């Protein structure tokens, strides 16, 4: 007597296309937007204070804001991104955080 063994097709697990992002993953961009009211020297100063950057790096991002309309300043977890946005807004800069899609 033959025992029938069911044919088992290999299970193909589809590759996960998108992993859901938790608040701890660095999936949030801190963006500074251009406006016609904040002085360039002031923006540079604020970047240095908030991020502890050297003047050259702060100037690079300030010029990016000025010439390209915005600059991505850092990529962080939700909590850290909120912290940086709050710090930048304390100085009245036009800063937001956006999901890094």
């Amino acid at each position, binding site marked *: 007597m033959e025992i029938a063994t069911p044919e088992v097709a290999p299970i193909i697990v589809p590759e996960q296309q998108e992993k859901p992002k938790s608040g701890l993953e660095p999936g949030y961009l801190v963006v500074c937007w251009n406006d*016609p*009211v904040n*002085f360039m020297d*002031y923006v540079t100063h604020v970047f240095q204070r908030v991020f502890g950057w050297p003047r050259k790096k702060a100037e690079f991002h300030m010029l990016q804001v000025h010439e390209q309309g915005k600059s991505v300043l850092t990529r962080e977890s939700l909590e850290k991104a909120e912290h940086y946005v709050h710090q930048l807004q*304390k100085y*009245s800069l036009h800063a937001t955080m956006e999901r890094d899609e």
Partner: protein
Amino acid sequence: MKLVRHAGERFEFQLGGREKDLLMEILGLYPRIPSAYQRLSKSAGSEEPNQRLLEEALAEQRRENKKQLQALLADREKMTENAQGWRLALTSAELEQLLQILNDVRVGSWVRLGSPESRLEVLDEKMAPDFWAMETAGFFQIRFLQMLEKGTNRS
């Protein structure tokens, strides 16, 4: 206005009598930015909890800044009269706070002017006080920044 002494965390500025009056007038306008001006995200609506938390945090920050500003201006050790005018003594933390306050007055005045994208061509009587506040706050802001840089480079 000029930086007369900088040692470690302490800065001392010399102001003329008119400069001191102007600075006091500008600081008296703080806060000027409307509470809902800042957005947490380009996509966040005003009803989102994080947006509300941000607005509360900024409002709290402004209340604290206002309280500390009033204490600073009332402190006779901080602002003293001398033969040349007035001597303003600030720590670097107080100077940072002063820069935030001045920029709030500048940006808030710009918002009151309708957030113009380019330089205003025509000024009427109604707009003049906000334009004056925006420009005067900017003047002090730039002077403090220049002196801060000078002081930092010197030390």
